């Protein structure tokens, strides 16, 4: 068995990304009760946009990064306003199908516009690894882990300390009461989707640092992100983050063992998640909905 610190660190970096995507999923689920199945594909599309800005057009990396995030925000808000809002009050199945439709739309867009070989989109942190004792930790991985944690902190701070963040939480908690306070719940929903899309795009760019960039970028990530969100408890942002880290580490540890190996690491990770849910059906930090009569 060759599981070592190396695998755990890889797992944390991977898990950081799962955590952010899971966070984006939880953001939308908490505010609207909708699971955005198109989350990954929207992120992939935005990451391909980033590639266009940075590699194809040759713009400076961080400028392209920020621009992509801005476009992602507008894209998310527009999707909410144009596609989701009309079906908001429809039965759940309709909404699920709509987001699945969005999945197909963005997947097709990505495949259609970006043909050709796998692309590269790495950030300018330099190649190579940092040596800590016996371990070699890739700079890219450190960057991804740090950036993921940074984004999570920013999101938490936004919701906890800003007026708009508070208004969004209020709109989620009780939309009618929020309206009575003068909050535009519709605008909060657009904001939520915009934020979620922005976070997803960032996740996509981070993943592109770890792997090559092609239209299937987020397919694998999305499934793990779902698992992470469920483990953490679909209503808990903190849980999403922790869930992500757990799933990432589990996946890498399982893949490192010769017993399980990389063939079975995916099912192994999911098996452990099933076990977690058997013990705690609401996820580690989720809350069963208690309605006070």
């Amino acid at each position: 068995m060759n599981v070592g610190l190396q695998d755990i660190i890889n797992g944390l970096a991977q898990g950081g990304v799962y955590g952010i995507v899971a966070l984006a999923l939880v953001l939308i689920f908490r505010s609207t009760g909708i699971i955005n199945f198109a989350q990954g594909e929207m992120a992939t599309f935005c990451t391909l946009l980033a590639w266009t800005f940075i590699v194809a057009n040759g713009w400076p990396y961080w400028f392209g990064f920020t621009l992509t995030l801005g476009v992602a925000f507008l894209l998310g808000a527009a999707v909410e306003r144009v596609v989701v809002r009309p079906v908001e009050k429809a039965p759940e199945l309709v909404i699920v199908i709509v987001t699945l439709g969005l999945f197909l739309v963005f997947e097709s867009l990505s495949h259609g516009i970006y043909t050709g070989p796998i692309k590269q989109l790495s950030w300018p942190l330099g190649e190579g690894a940092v040596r800590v004792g016996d371990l070699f930790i890739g700079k890219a991985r450190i960057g991804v882990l740090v950036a993921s944690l940074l984004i999570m902190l920013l999101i938490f701070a936004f919701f906890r300390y800003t007026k708009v963040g508070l208004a969004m939480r209020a709109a989620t908690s009780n939309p009618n009461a929020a309206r009575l306070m003068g909050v535009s719940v519709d605008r909060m929903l657009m904001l939520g989707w915009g934020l979620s899309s922005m976070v997803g795009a960032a996740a996509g760019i981070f993943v592109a640092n770890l792997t090559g960039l092609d239209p299937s970028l987020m397919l694998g990530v999305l499934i793990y992100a779902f698992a992470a969100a469920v483990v953490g408890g679909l209503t808990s942002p903190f849980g999403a983050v922790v869930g992500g880290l757990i799933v990432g580490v589990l996946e890498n540890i399982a893949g490192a063992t010769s017993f399980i190996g990389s063939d079975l690491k995916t099912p192994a990770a999911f098996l452990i998640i099933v076990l977690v849910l058997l013990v705690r059906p609401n996820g580690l930090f989720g809350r069963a909905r208690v309605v006070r009569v």
Partner: protein
Amino acid sequence: MADALLEVEDIVTQYGPVVALHGVSFRVPEGQIVTLLGANGAGKSTTLRTISGLLRVTRGQILFDGKPLHKMSPEQIVRAGVVQSPEGRQVFADLTVDENLEMGAYTRRDRAGIARDKQRVFEYFPVLGQRRSQPAGTLSGGEQQMLAIGRALMARPRLLLLDEPSLGLAPLIVREIFEIVQTINRDEGITVLLVEQDVALALHVAHYGYVLTTGTVALHGPSDQLRADESVRRSYLGY
């Protein structure tokens, strides 16, 4: 006769094809406590929801200080000074007491004024101050009602709409809350439109009352008069 602070003129409100208010008219003079009475389904909460802009009128108008409230958005109505403490409290259960109060002041920008008003709310309702960092969902029914009223006060209302504050609460707590409402009305000059099922209690605190039945005003008058009225006594006061 001076114009009242709130003039509701012949409003018709519908839920889809169902007409809930068949032409309701009443006036609320500034500085008074006016109560809307009636049984379940009479249209009391619908009236308040219409005033707050959550429902649109099909006909008629609502004038607040001369301004056409019925044409304004819920946000504009709050900014104009008409604020509601809704039926069933509707506090933000996941937010703390403090955050609930902050949300009450959502339309305001003056930090110093907001802080001062929060202190005043804690003076009226000390228990809220004690629990200010607790999630609102953990409060008792009576405390949540106090929070709902405090939250409304944070918007600096000129007219406070109270929707069934006694619902589901023990008589002792209800009496305490109503005394505080009277104090607020007296000391701050805040006009109150009170919707209540507890007719005796409502007529005790209000100056004037309107009795609604199935979407129209059946009867109205000063509270003493209503209390003495035969039909009111038999239908609502039980004697």
